[in-house]
């Protein structure tokens, strides 16, 4: 055996896991390598995993899982680690099962409009592999250049174009899952939608990696729309912008995407790698995209221009070329990362609000910003009311991370207070565990952890995520129940 293939560890678990995945090239256990896995896109909590393993196929995943559960080792799955709520952070020193080497496009079935992928297959690669045949995969999180479809399933990812076509769960036809005991099950076999019985596909999609490890995914693919066009509109007042959004939707138009950025967000994207020249002094920019049959598009665009003009728009126009359209979207889609250009760190929040409440919510967020002394930028999937306040901070300043967390939590409270909720697409993870209490009672949370227990009874898989640690009263009730049974 060559030196590179030798595992230089005395830990028997490391040696045994290495045997399962085929040697040193498929396992990491040195501190320096593990540090690269101590967090994901959510950087406030960090913890080292015990090891990272890189299985090649479902069988290896099942064996790893069996080994971990037999030896009481906590474990979790990780895709590209772009999650924004800490779902892939090994809080308990987990064995991380990295899915990125399972990255094959297994099959494409154009006739039945579906494709089968391994979980490590990168979102955008699916569209890129079928676009020449006139098809695409609709869910388009802004992280689609890098995030995995497995991670998308776990987080039920959404994207700018999910307003019209729905989020990940609307595009999943079947899953192969390794259950926390190592058993391999298929859900939604043969990709037939709406199978009788409980909607297990729905349950697994968005379960944030707490119920099982997805090893194969059958997704729906769509035919490319005949045409698409994007309108850009600048507003001097947020109120006018959000009113325009409501008007567009009440006019019966269903845009493919409807996005808004506020002044601070604009400052960020303009300072970063893909500036397009948005004016710095406007309060809101709207990007409105319509797609569909070519003939209908022009009419819809005219209607949208008209609606915006009625709402005191400063400037509104349709993209002059495909290149311009692409530039507008690149600017928007790199919006989160762009915050790096104006702040050392940022925390993305992910609330959902009734659209009509946007002006009120933004002014309350402004207040949170001035009280905390931290700047907050807002990027808004305006069509479906999914608001991303980005709290800008500097982790090197003692106490500022905590302040950012607190400000983020307050933003979510505002969202819950106006009748919305605390996550639209990024998941709860570690970050919003406590905020679950803004929207669920103790009993409702307990009902959900009961479901988790059915699948993940020893809670070895991705423990400590999604739900707040139970408060005393529920714990006592559980204990009483346990006593009654025994």
């Amino acid at each position, binding site marked *: 055996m060559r030196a590179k293939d030798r595992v230089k560890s005395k830990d028997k678990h490391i040696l045994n896991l290495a045997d399962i995945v085929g040697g040193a090239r498929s396992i990491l256990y040195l501190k320096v390598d593990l540090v690269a896995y101590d967090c994901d*896109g959510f*950087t406030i909590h960090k913890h080292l995993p015990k090891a990272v393993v890189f299985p090649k196929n479902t069988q290896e995943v099942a064996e790893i899982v069996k080994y971990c559960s037999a030896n009481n080792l906590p474990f979790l799955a990780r895709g590209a680690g772009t999650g924004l709520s800490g779902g892939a952070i090994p809080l308990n020193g987990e064995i991380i099962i990295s899915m990125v080497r399972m990255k094959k496009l297994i099959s494409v079935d154009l006739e039945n409009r579906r494709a089968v992928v391994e979980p490590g297959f990168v979102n955008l690669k699916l569209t890129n592999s079928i676009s020449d045949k006139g098809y695409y995969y609709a869910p388009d999180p802004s992280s689609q250049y890098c995030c995995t479809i497995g991670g998308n399933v776990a987080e039920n990812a959404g994207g700018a174009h999910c307003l019209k076509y729905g989020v990940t769960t609307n595009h999943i036809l079947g899953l192969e899952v390794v259950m926390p005991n190592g058993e391999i099950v298929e859900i939604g076999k043969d990709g037939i939608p709406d199978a009788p019985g409980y909607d297990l596909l729905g349950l697994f999609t968005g379960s944030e990696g707490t119920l099982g490890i997805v090893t194969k995914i059958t997704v729906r693919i769509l035919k490319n729309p005949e045409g698409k066009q994007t309108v850009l509109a600048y507003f001097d007042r947020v109120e006018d912008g959000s009113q325009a959004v409501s008007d567009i939707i009440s006019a019966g138009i269903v845009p493919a995407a409807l996005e808004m950025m506020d002044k601070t967000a604009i400052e960020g994207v303009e300072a970063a*790698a893909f500036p397009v020249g948005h004016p710095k002094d406007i309060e809101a920019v709207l990007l409105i995209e319509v797609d569909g049959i070519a003939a209908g598009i022009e009419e819809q665009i005219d209607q949208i221009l008209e609606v915006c003009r009625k709402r005191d728009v400063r400037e509104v126009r349709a993209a002059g070329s495909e290149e311009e359209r692409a530039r507008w979207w690149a600017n928007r889609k790199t919006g989160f990362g762009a915050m790096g250009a104006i702040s050392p760190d940022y925390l993305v929040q992910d609330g959902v609000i009734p659209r009509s409440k946007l002006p009120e919510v933004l002014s309350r967020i402004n207040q949170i910003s001035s009280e905390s002394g931290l700047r907050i930028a807002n990027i808004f999937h305006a069509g479906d009311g999914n608001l991303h306040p980005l709290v800008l901070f500097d982790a090197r300043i003692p106490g500022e991370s905590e302040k950012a967390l607190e400000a983020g939590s307050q933003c979510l409270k505002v969202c819950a207070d106006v009748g919305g909720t605390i996550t639209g697409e990024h998941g709860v993870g570690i970050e919003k565990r406590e905020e679950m209490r803004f929207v669920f009672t103790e009993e409702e949370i307990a009902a959900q952890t009961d479901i988790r227990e059915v699948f993940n009874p020893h809670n070895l898989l991705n423990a400590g995520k999604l739900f707040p640690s139970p408060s005393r009263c529920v714990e006592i009730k559980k204990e009483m129940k346990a006593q009654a049974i025994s």
Partner: protein
Amino acid sequence: MSVQELDLKQEPPCTSGLGNYLWSDPPDEKKWADCVHCGMCLESCPTYEQTGQEQHSPRGRVHLIKSVAEGTLQVNEQFIDPVFQCLDCRACTTACPADVDVGGLIEEARGQIRQAMPLTGVKGAISKFFLHDLFPHQNRLNTLGGLLKFYQKSGIQKAVRKTKLINVMPQHLVDMESIMPEVKEPVKKKYKDVKVIKAKGETKQEVAMLTGCVMDVMFSDINESTINVLTRNGNDVVIPQSQTCCGALHVHAGDRDMGRKLAKQNMEAFKDFDKVIVNAAGCGCMMKEYAELFKEDPEMHAKAEEFSEKVEDISKFLHDTGYEKPNAEMNTRITYHDACHLAHGQGIRQQPRDILLDIPGVDMVHMPNSDRCCGSAGIYNITNPEMANAVLESKMENVPDDVEMISMGNPGCMLQMAMGVQKYGRNQKIVHTVQLLDWAYQKEDRMKEGEE
């Protein structure tokens, strides 16, 4: 790398470091402050593509480098692998929405590693031979004539001639073959006593030219082509004799002291000129970044910044100052490979393509992922052959089947791609962008002579 090869007992100097960086010139905090750990760079990285491991990704590398400064990691043997497996291809810098200078951080981190753990043993000897005893000394390089053969062997030129393949090649390719200049003596030597190589016709301006160390020995024909193309388009060309190797290889290897020495020598050699023309992307990129080497020396830093302004790649220079479009038809199908240090390093993508498309009869076929690294990366293919080969293999998969030439703007890439062509049984000719332009000019001249 085994422990024996490393000398861990180097005592740090008594300068103020940063966290666990104990040596001077540590990685620059400002560079990682912009990284928000979003992961948008992952898929751009060839070493992440190959391994799927995040310590071999840009985000991971930035995170590790930062962790040393924060005291969670140390500059030790384990730290070497993630930092030295990086190809320094800069694809991540293009992909990053926050413009994080990952390449710059990597080079600074390498500087720390090499100060803390100088290479000893076999690796040390090889590295010393290349970096100290060879590249900075033009005369030694020149006498290394054997290397010349290497180029001809790895290109198709020799194979084609030996196997008599030339007889079955399409006529226009045979033509091309016949006009391909023979490898000549290094231009720096050749023009030793010529103060100014005069422009043909009216002089528009005077430029200085970097001949490069390896370039001038293995690729002096490209240097000749560069001179021809420059003089043909109204430029007087000066080749300052006191110029030396640009230092890129040294800086990539973590030898920043040597890098500074060479940088100073070049800044001095070119100080009287307004433009320094470079035909090797790697050298151009390095010279544009000399200021990075002098962060702790404000005076030199300012000088280096001024100097960087003067450095320009030949394709951008021609594009910006104008060039005569050749009249002769070249009739060939080609594809273009974006050298990392042109595309990612200097943002030069369209200019060379425009030049090639201005040559009549050039049919350009798109290469998918054309700005993906070929694995050459300075002497990376010598130091990390396994990764370099894996990266080369995926590069070659993207080279279209039906092209006759692959054009590019960097000698390192040319060697690596020539190797790829040979290894994977392909038959493309590897050319530099200015060569193709020069051949078109020459063909035009010959046609005119024939008419007369």
